[in-house]
């Protein structure tokens, strides 16, 4: 269970702070909608630890997260873009998600190759991100987040800007994750995303 209690945050020039208060049961998907600037991305950044809240608490299975650094939180994020390090190849990009210094066992290397084949990108390990299409890049990012095996998946408009086919592939992958028990927080203004994935809708 993810419990967010009275979590407040304001940017310096903002007069009235945001206040978030909600909970999500394990294995469910909460979809967040709202106009741009309503605080969707801010909320996801707070959960991931990129921003520090002014007050309030974030608990996952009873454990307080709000004071942990990003790397120690049981979360993984997929953004709309900039999910990959442009100067590193696909395999390295994924491998750095499994170990921050790329110290992997042979089994983990095989796991990455198998994963690439599963998301329809067999043998793409040596490609550079700049050579991939938007949909392919998002599949790599999603593959990395699934291989990290974190129980909380934060999705910030992950399908925006992709063509229909790529969106369909990504939705299937996300449904797999949900079925495997991963908790999803999805910020999206796509009606279809919410219908397919979300158990609950929340309009900010």
């Amino acid at each position, binding site marked *: 269970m993810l419990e967010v209690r009275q979590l407040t945050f304001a940017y310096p020039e903002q007069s009235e702070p945001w206040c978030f208060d909600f909970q999500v049961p394990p294995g469910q998907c909460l979809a967040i909608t709202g106009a741009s600037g309503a605080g969707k991305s801010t909320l996801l950044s707070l959960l991931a630890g990129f921003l520090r809240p002014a007050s309030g608490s974030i608990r996952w299975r009873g454990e307080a997260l709000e004071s942990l650094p990003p790397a120690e939180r049981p979360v993984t994020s997929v953004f709309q873009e900039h999910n990959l390090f*442009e*100067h590193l190849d696909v395999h390295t990009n994924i491998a750095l998600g499994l170990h921050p210094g790329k110290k992997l066992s042979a089994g983990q290397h095989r796991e990455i190759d198998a994963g690439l084949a599963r998301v329809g990108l067999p043998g793409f390990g040596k490609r550079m991100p700049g050579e991939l299409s938007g949909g392919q890049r998002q599949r790599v990012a999603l593959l990395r987040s699934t291989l990290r095996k974190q129980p909380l998946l934060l999705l910030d408009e992950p399908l925006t800007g992709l063509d229909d086919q790529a969106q369909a592939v990504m939705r299937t992958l996300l449904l797999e994750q949900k079925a495997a028990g991963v908790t999803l927080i999805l910020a999206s203004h796509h009606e279809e995303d919410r219908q397919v994935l979300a158990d609950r809708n929340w309009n900010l």
Partner: protein
Amino acid sequence: MAAAIILLTLSGLSALLWQAPVLEVAELWQSRYLRGVVHFSIWQALLSVILSLLVALPVARALAQLRVFPGRSLLLRLMELSLVMPTIVAVSGLISVYGRQGWLTVWVQDWLPALGWNLYGINGIVLAHVFFNGPLAARILLQALEAVPQPQQRLASQLGLSSWWRWRALEWPAIRAVLPGLGALIFTLCFTSFAIVMTLGGGPSATTLEVAIYQALRFEFDFGRAALLAMVQLLICGSLWWGVLRKGLNTDLAPQRTFAQHQLFVTASRTSRLLYGLLLAGFVVFMLLPLLAVVTRGLPGLWSTEVFAPGSALLDATLRSLAIALPAGGVAVLVALLLLAAGHRSHRWFTRTSEAAGYLPLMVPPLVLGTGLFLLLRPQLGASNEGLLLVTVINGMMALPFVMQVLRGPLHSLDTPSRNLADQLGILGWYRWRWLHWPRMRRPLALGMAYGIGLSLGDFGVIALFGTPGKPTLPMLLYQQLGSYQIHAAAATGLWLVLLLLTVFAVFNLLGWSGSQRPRLFPLTPIPEPRHA
């Protein structure tokens, strides 16, 4: 690290002040010699700045107007050369062209005997300064001109602005911003110029402070006078840079490595294009003649085998030069990295302190720093190797402002999404350096290394102070050969020094590429070029 640099500078300066009891400030305006030296230093520097800018402005304008012609990028690269070209080599080239027996001099004396051209004295000093700083200034001004936003340039060509209005509306505002920093840079370089004045200066009437300090230290052993002169020099350079930095420095000290990509339709009329072309041609001849002289006169000398025989003077000097320059490059890069890293992640005032510390070597000329340390460590120094160690450190400091500029952009180029991602994946500390910074930094690092090594290889000022004539570095050897009229040997040494420099740059360029980065992928995934380099 910033503290260490400031400490090093302060200890040098306090050693100077510690000599203060002996110094007689009144001497400064009572002694005709000293008055003359100060006056001449400022006068030749001012003249050099004005003439350099007068050469640079039309050249930069011409290059900004003529955007496409064969050899343009080669010309731009050539203009960067003056940043690392050893002064003493360029001087030997200038002597071959403009000296007593020079190519041009002979010709001029035939046609215009009334001119009475003499390279030695203020003529040669200013000529050499313009030769060095004109191209550099033109390159930096061109950068400012090319930075004018494209829509504005399009608008100007659509309106068909006349040359004068183009200048007023577009070019002058762009140039005005970089002019103070550029002027200060050239002034400092000319004001503290050493090798050029040593070789082309003639007697007491054409001596700068820098040379006077050297003479006081090495020949007259008058430390009080050296301290006094160093303080005067520091006062002038320090207040100049303080003024410039206080207003915020937005001048690149070194040209960027990337050239502007966009190509605009040339709007200049046919006649003005012709004029620009002639201007550029003249400029190229001005730049190339001395280099050509170095090459053609040096080649026969290098051809003979005994030059490189084991134990020959040239080989000896080469090894000594490399022993000083290679570590100096390392010092420069390491200190620059530490300064930049410290400046990046801390408080505002701390950032400014450590960045300003990087400019300190410009404010406190190396010879002044050297003088202080010389006085401080004098008892221990003799013909020992510790002197050379000190030369390495000071050489490294000299390169600091330029190396920092090469490294600053790429080191801070990690964007927010990448930073967040790295935070989440736990790529911190060493891992972050290894996987995120190192791949982007290796080329700038290699370039910074090459700058550091290059500047130290060509250094003649600091080594003249600490070195011993019996154990010369390459620039010292060249100076000795020039002084004893061994023209052929000098030409060979000069060419050899240039070849060595080019090798250093080529090797580090290769090092920047090798490894996992395959150049084949370059067009698809550009590694960010240094923004300020």
